[in-house]
């Protein structure tokens, strides 16, 4: 029989697995999961064509909750695994999920070089300014005066500014979203996926257990008053006055994504085994 099978677009629910999240009730990551699945559905992707890669932490549990291919990897090393996967399988849509501890501290160096290399990945960081999974230690984005049992009086340390770093290091798409706006976040993730090269989406995702005051983010975030720019210098100037609560795309460039040299790297796993055999 010679019949063509036309794939009908899937609903967002089709991208969810049968595993139920074990995040704390009220965690912003539930909404981010919903945004992932909505973005995949809006882009008319198929679960078998998407890989969700993560490191360690609350946010990094996301691959298990999707019906896509998933890789729950080593702390801070999600970008390395994802880059390898994308270069080996350029046909896949590769989305990386991380948190502010996994992505900016343990994985900080990978973040810099992933931006610089510009492999066609979408990097989504769920930022709650705290290490939630390990009981609330300060993370790189924790405010210097955040007082807690584990950091009496605060760390006194300057916060890491992920958008500034992404822009300076060469990310081709830089945006900020808010978990409490799941449809808007889905749009941003979809736009990040559509944009070739390394796309970075920072999502403010409240940790209601260790940072209950982050519930107020809903009243504080706002759409960015200006549209995105393709001029990195202009984007950098905007960040100088950014208070961390503007939502939307900041920068979208046109740098071509990294492509492996043609004719090389086409070895089969069995060839590599021979080459690297002791």
């Amino acid at each position, binding site marked *: 029989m010679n019949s063509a099978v036309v794939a009908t677009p899937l609903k967002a629910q089709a991208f969810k697995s049968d595993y139920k999240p074990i995040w*704390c009730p009220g965690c912003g990551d539930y909404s981010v999961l919903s945004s992932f699945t909505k973005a995949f559905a809006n882009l008319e992707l198929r679960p078998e064509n998407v890989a969700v890669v993560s490191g360690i932490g609350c946010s990094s549990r996301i691959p298990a909750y999707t019906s896509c291919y998933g890789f729950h990897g080593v702390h801070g090393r999600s970008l390395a695994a994802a880059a390898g996967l994308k270069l080996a399988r350029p046909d896949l849509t590769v989305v990386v999920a991380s948190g502010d501890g996994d992505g900016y501290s343990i994985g900080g160096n990978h973040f810099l070089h992933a931006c610089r290399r510009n492999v066609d990945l979408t990097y989504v960081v769920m930022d709650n300014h705290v290490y939630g999974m390990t009981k609330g230690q300060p993370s790189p984005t924790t405010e210097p005066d955040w007082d807690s049992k584990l950091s009496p009086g605060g760390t006194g340390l300057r916060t890491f500014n992920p958008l500034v770093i992404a822009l300076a290091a060469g990310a081709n798409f830089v945006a900020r979203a808010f978990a409490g706006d*799941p*449809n808007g976040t889905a749009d941003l993730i979809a736009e990040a996926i559509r944009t070739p090269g390394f796309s970075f989406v920072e999502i403010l995702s409240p940790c209601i257990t260790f940072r209950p005051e982050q519930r107020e983010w809903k009243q504080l975030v706002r759409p960015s008053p200006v549209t995105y720019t393709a001029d990195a210098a202009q984007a950098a100037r905007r960040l100088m006055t950014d208070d961390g609560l503007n939502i939307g795309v900041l920068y979208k460039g046109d740098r071509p994504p990294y492509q492996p040299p043609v004719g090389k790297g086409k070895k089969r796993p069995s060839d590599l085994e021979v080459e690297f055999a002791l």
Partner: protein
Amino acid sequence: MSTKKSVKKVKKPAAKTGAKKTLKNAPKKAVKKSVKKTGVAAAAKRAASKSAKAQPVASAADFMAHAYAMEAEAAERYAEFADSMEMHNNLEVAELFRKLSRIEQRHADQILEQMGWKQSPVSAANVRWEGMEGPETADPTELHYLMQPYHALQIALHNEKRARDFFAHLAKVTKDAGVRAGALEMEEDEAEHVHLIEEWLARTPKPDANWEADQDPPVLSD
């Protein structure tokens, strides 16, 4: 947790659309109001997958598609809440959220039935509201792993009030007589739902003052 406070935070509704709802699963005193076949058109929002800026709908069918999205989104959110509570072994509240989800889903299904649709022409995932979410969609940050049915009902009450106030606002600002009539009708239904949940709350035990007390709290303390 802010569940107790949240129900008071009824904001001025942004322009949204909604549908009639049925609360017939509410325990004891139930109500059944099907989605009415009125000529409801409204200043709702057009699906805008490429733009966060919502646009007014142009027809009754478009309006109903958005009404469907509103109900479906509310149902999905309550189902997520139920899963979350189940995972944390708060089975009583999980069941209550499951029930609320079923009620909202039934409203969504009624819209499909009324319109003769197998599925909505506009995917719920593509609908954009003027605010961050639909007027009946519950706020996830109001949850607490030790919350009680009373708290869950407060959340539901808050959402019904938001929907009621939305339709009241819509009826007030629209220049279209048909829209006004539809919005007023819906406002009336929503007001009835508010009343029903208030009755439900009155039959539900109020939590103790120390309901949040946990012998093994997640946050380190002295």
